[in-house]
């Protein structure tokens, strides 16, 4: 196994060296070489669309007032203060001091509006860009990305959900094979990845399986597996994954201690570090969930507790992506299903608020250091200025990823549906 950064490791080759080697030897088709080339290709120069997404999913609905849209010294702040950031005009809620240093790379949308205030329906809406309807299940951003940008060079699933809650990102009408692969705290091997018997016994079992498969295949089309069941295909992919060196990306214990420390000693911090390592290996979309934002009571203390977890992890992720020259090819989005009410309830909580909540977006061609929209500092007016619908956010994400949001997909029910029915927010993007 090659150690990261060691001589001969994928990271240690430069694209030019590899091209030279490949050209000399005519071995460019060799899988490891082509994979590294592909990874290098994805360190896109400026102007090229992003190729990957990391979604920091704030499950439960974070309070915009205690995170990205503080209104200090107002009644609705209820004591929450604001801090200055590297972007002159932008202030964040106290507690986000580390993210504040990166605000020139981050754009804030403070005027997100949704029509869903129920968790499940709102999660669906934010993850897919469409409201739930009984006729069809829409795919999440990661599923669309994997469907539109296939890459056979990755052994591990290209759509991953770390620390998923009960509603992880789904493949929707693209099928279950585009569902996010779910993993828990990434500080060890992932579940069900290791065979429970020695190699020799496993191989004998697999040979035996061929005997049973041969009987079942009799009288059936020769391409049954390729066109219908994908059973053997999925088995082969699973076996390839089980023996892949790329699996190391899931185990953050292999990262330097100082790097781990920067993300914070939390499951979410480890998840963000794993997301970085997965993106480096060609994974298209990683969703990392931080729950506990549904603060109907004792809002300030609970939000503060989560902010302490989010701040170092998000900031370290942005720093590492920049250092690895991956921020231009990776879109990072941080947000939840809705925001929270401007007014505190009698038990010091904030309730669901789908009118004027915030998301933070960085990398992937997004013009950082700007704010879109504003909410009413008195909390009286629901409608924010420059409201941004969830569909608009999705159309913008697609555009940043080089995917035409208007592209229509014929769904299993025979109805064509656009990948997004929103409008692209050009002002958020650099070009």
């Amino acid at each position, binding site marked *: 196994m090659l150690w990261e950064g060691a001589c001969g490791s994928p990271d240690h080759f430069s694209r030019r060296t590899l091209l030279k080697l490949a050209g000399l030897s005519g071995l460019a088709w060799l899988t490891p070489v082509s994979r590294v080339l592909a990874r290098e290709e994805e360190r896109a120069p400026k102007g090229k669309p992003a190729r990957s997404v990391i979604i920091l999913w704030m499950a439960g609905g974070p309070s915009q007032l205690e995170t990205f849209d503080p209104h200090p010294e107002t009644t609705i702040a209820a004591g929450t203060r604001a801090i200055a950031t590297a972007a002159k005009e932008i202030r964040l809620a106290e507690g986000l001091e580390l993210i504040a240093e990166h605000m020139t790379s981050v754009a804030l949308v403070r005027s997100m509006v949704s029509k869903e205030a129920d*968790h499940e329906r709102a999660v669906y809406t934010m993850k897919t860009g469409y409201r739930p309807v*009984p006729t069809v299940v829409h795919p999440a951003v990661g599923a669309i990305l994997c469907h539109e940008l296939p890459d056979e060079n990755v052994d591990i699933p290209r759509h991953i959900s770390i620390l998923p809650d009960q509603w992880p990102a789904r493949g929707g009408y693209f099928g279950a094979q585009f569902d996010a692969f779910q993993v828990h705290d990434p500080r060890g091997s992932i579940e069900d990845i290791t065979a*429970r018997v020695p190699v020799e*016994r496993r191989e004998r079992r697999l040979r035996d399986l061929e*005997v049973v498969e041969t009987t*079942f295949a009799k009288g059936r*089309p020769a391409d049954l597996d390729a066109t219908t069941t994908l059973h053997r295909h999925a*088995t082969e992919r*699973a076996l390839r994954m*089980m023996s892949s060196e790329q699996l190391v990306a899931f185990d953050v214990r292999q990262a330097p201690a100082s790097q781990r420390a920067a993300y914070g000693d939390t499951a979410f911090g480890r998840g963000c570090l794993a997301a970085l390592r997965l993106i480096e290996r060609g994974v298209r979309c990683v969703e990392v969930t931080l729950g506990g934002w549904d603060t109907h009571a004792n809002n300030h203390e609970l939000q503060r507790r989560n902010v302490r977890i989010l701040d170092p992890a998000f900031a370290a992720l942005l720093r590492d992506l920049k250092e690895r020259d991956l921020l231009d090819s990776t879109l990072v989005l941080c947000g939840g299903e809705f925001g929270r009410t401007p007014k505190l309830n009698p038990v010091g909580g904030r309730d669901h608020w789908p009118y004027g909540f915030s998301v933070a977006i960085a990398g992937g061609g997004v013009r950082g250091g700007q704010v879109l929209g504003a909410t009413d500092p008195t909390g009286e007016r629901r409608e924010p200025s420059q409201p941004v619908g969830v569909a608009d956010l999705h159309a913008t994400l697609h555009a940043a990823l080089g995917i035409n949001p208007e592209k229509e997909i014929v769904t299993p029910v025979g109805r064509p549906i656009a990948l997004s029915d929103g409008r692209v927010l050009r002002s958020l993007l650099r070009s």
Partner: protein
Amino acid sequence: MKPWFRPYLGFLVLVAALGLAVDQVLARRRVLEVPRFRAFAGNAEAAEIREVAERVDNAFDAAWKAAGLECSPPAPPLTVYRRVSLALTGTIPSLAEIRALESHSAGEDTLSLWVSYLLADRRSSDYLAERFARAMVGVEDGPFILYRRHRLVSWLSDQIHRNRSYGEWARDLIASSGIWTTRPEVNFVTVTVDPNNEQEGPDEVRLAARVSRAFLGVRIDCVQCHDDKFSDRWKQTHFHELASFFARAEMSITGVRDNPEKKYEYRYLGRSEKEPVLPQVPFQENLLPADGALRDRLARWVTHPENRPFARTLVNRAWALLFQRPLHEPLESIPLDGPFPPGMEILADDLIAHDFDLHRLLRVIASTRVFRLDSTLPAGRREIQAEAVRTFAAFPLTRLRPEQVAGSLLQSASLKTVDANAHVLSRVIRHFQQRDFVRHYGDAGSDEFEVVPGTIPQRLVLMNGSLVKERTKDDLVMNAATRIAALAPAPSAAVEAAYLAVLTRRPSPEESRHFVDRLENDAKVSRAHHLEDLYWTLINSTEFAWNH
């Protein structure tokens, strides 16, 4: 500190041992009771069922002939028993059931007896209730809805077990009032209440969508925001006029009730103002009763015997339950004026004539020759084969639902039937193991009749997951693999028993040779070890994971 039970330990062990012994005796008796399946229907009804099934078969024969298609040969009986068991109970037949089925003489219609036996079994009503619940209320959860949903599923199971008229329980779902704990059927309505905003009451838009799809097989919810873009059939007004029937429903201290003061208003596309929307049904207005509460009028219209979309939708759903594919696709989008697939109108007529008898409908469909065809295809060109699959000239190949995989896995690990008569401990274990498995394997959600291929996580769960290991490892008490290894008189009998228990068929000569040779000649490891490997292999096959 000593544990509190220390002084009673001996007594507790004795009670547990006695309990197990009694259970074993009872279980033996139950196994002995299984061999003869009683006919559920009387002779006259059985003849009627055969006659209707034959007319359906004739309709398919005519359609295949017109298309120049040849149908597949009949499937082996065990394959068909497996299909029925998976469709009605969500599991494969147990080895005990297979032995009992095979004890019937060749002249008997064993399949009909098997269907009747399963329909009388609580496993079927529980399983079918869950399948119906997905159509009625979806799979949305959350702490409040989860419990309400559970109450609704139990109620549905009771209706199905009693074989109460589908028309009657559909009326109850649409029109009931009261508290959701004492009137579980009212949860069809309450499930649309936003738990964070109960004062807004049930969501008439979601209810209209559910009613139109689940009971009428039309998707007029597609015109919620605009007129139909693909045809002139549906207007935006159709949907909102249907929604208006639910506008009076509200939540009160006495549960769901209708408030005559409440009105439904909507701003149609292109209009500047909201306007009152009066309730009206989207077709066959002449069948709408003039009197009664709004939801009650709607319920009576939906279930009216002359409102054929209601019957067709149930036919399509029952067909989908048995074939894992609806007769008309998509399931909940049947054209009002046809054309209809072969057999649909015949089955709808019979259903209406017999007061929406669900059991009878399932028995008729299972009695058709179409249901008993093999899933292998007659040799032919690829496009012809595709057409044969589309028109049911071959039994459709479909992936098992996650709970079917879990249920089959757990059943294959037991030689006896894991049903309501099984030991409570094994049922509890099964419940939790099944739940955990489905969570890992991935629930299919409400899109349950879509043909979707297997996924990598699913393969990992079956190859390396703990449940497969737990239920195949060397364990004489819990696992059939070990029991077969210990009890089978010869290697060939052991291999055959494993095949029957897992794949519901006997091994082919090549398979038998391969595995018997392994058992006879590889003495380096125990027979239990070989059986564990054989179980793993069979469970990981395409054949196990697919309905065929």
